[in-house]
C-alpha cells in the first residue's frame, strides 16, 4: 500500500522554464511534508518542507504547494537550472516515521 505516490517517473524541462513535480498521499494523519533531492551516488538532501497548517512555502527558486482536500502537493522550481537535474523524493510524516514516494527524475536541458 503506497501511502505516498509520485506518478511521474521522469520529467524533462528546458533551462529557465518552470519544473513542476507532483505528489499524492492517502494517509489523512500526515501533517508534515518534505521534498528531498538526490544526486547519483549521494544520499538524499533536504530541500524544502511544509506543515499541514500552511498551503504554500517558498524558499528562493523552490515553492511547495499543499492541497489538503485533494491530498496533493507539488514542488515548483523557477527558473529551472541544469544543476537541478536529480531525483526528487516527496516524503510525508504524521508520527515518528517518514514515508517516501518512489521519486521523479528531473532533467533540465540547457
Amino acid at each position, binding site marked *: 500500500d503506497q501511502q505516498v505516490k509520485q506518478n511521474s517517473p521522469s520529467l524533462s524541462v528546458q533551462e529557465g522554464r518552470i519544473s513542476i513535480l507532483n505528489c499524492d498521499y492517502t494517509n489523512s494523519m500526515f501533517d508534515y511534508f518534505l521534498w528531498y533531492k538526490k544526486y547519483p551516488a549521494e544520499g538524499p538532501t533536504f530541500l524544502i518542507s511544509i506543515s499541514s497548517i500552511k498551503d504554500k512555502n517558498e524558499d528562493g527558486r523552490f515553492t511547495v504547494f499543499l492541497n489538503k482536500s485533494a491530498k496533493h502537493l507539488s514542488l515548483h522550481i523557477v527558473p529551472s537550472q541544469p544543476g537541478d537535474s536529480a531525483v526528487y*523524493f516527496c516524503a510525508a510524516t504524521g508520527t515518528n516515521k517518514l514515508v517516501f514516494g518512489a521519486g521523479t527524475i528531473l532533467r533540465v536541458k540547457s
Partner: protein
Amino acid sequence: EAGVVQSPRYKIIEKKQPVAFWCNPISGHNTLYWYRQNLGQGPELLIRYENEEAVDDSQLPKDRFSAERLKGVDSTLKIQPAELGDSAVYLCASGTNYEQYFGPGTRLTVT
C-alpha cells in the same frame, strides 16, 4: 561539521554470505535511522534508534537482519545470510522526523 558517515560505500558478496554496514551519525543527534532503497523506489525505514534503544524495528526482517547501536552513537546493520533480493542501497540518517540528514549510502550487490 561532518555529515553522516557510512562505510563501505560499495559491497559485492555472494548469496548466503554475511555483510555488515557501519554508520556514524552527526554529532549530537540522538535519533538514527537505517533505510533500504531498492532500485526505482524511495527509501524505506528498516529501524529507528533513540540513543541506544531500537524504538521502531517493525520493518526489519529479523530472521536475517540485525542492528545495534551499543553506545548510542555509531551503529552497525548486519545481514546474515544475504539473499539476492537484499541487493539495494542501505542508507543511514540522523536528526529528527522533520529534519533528517542522510549519509551517502552503501550499495550492496548480492550475486
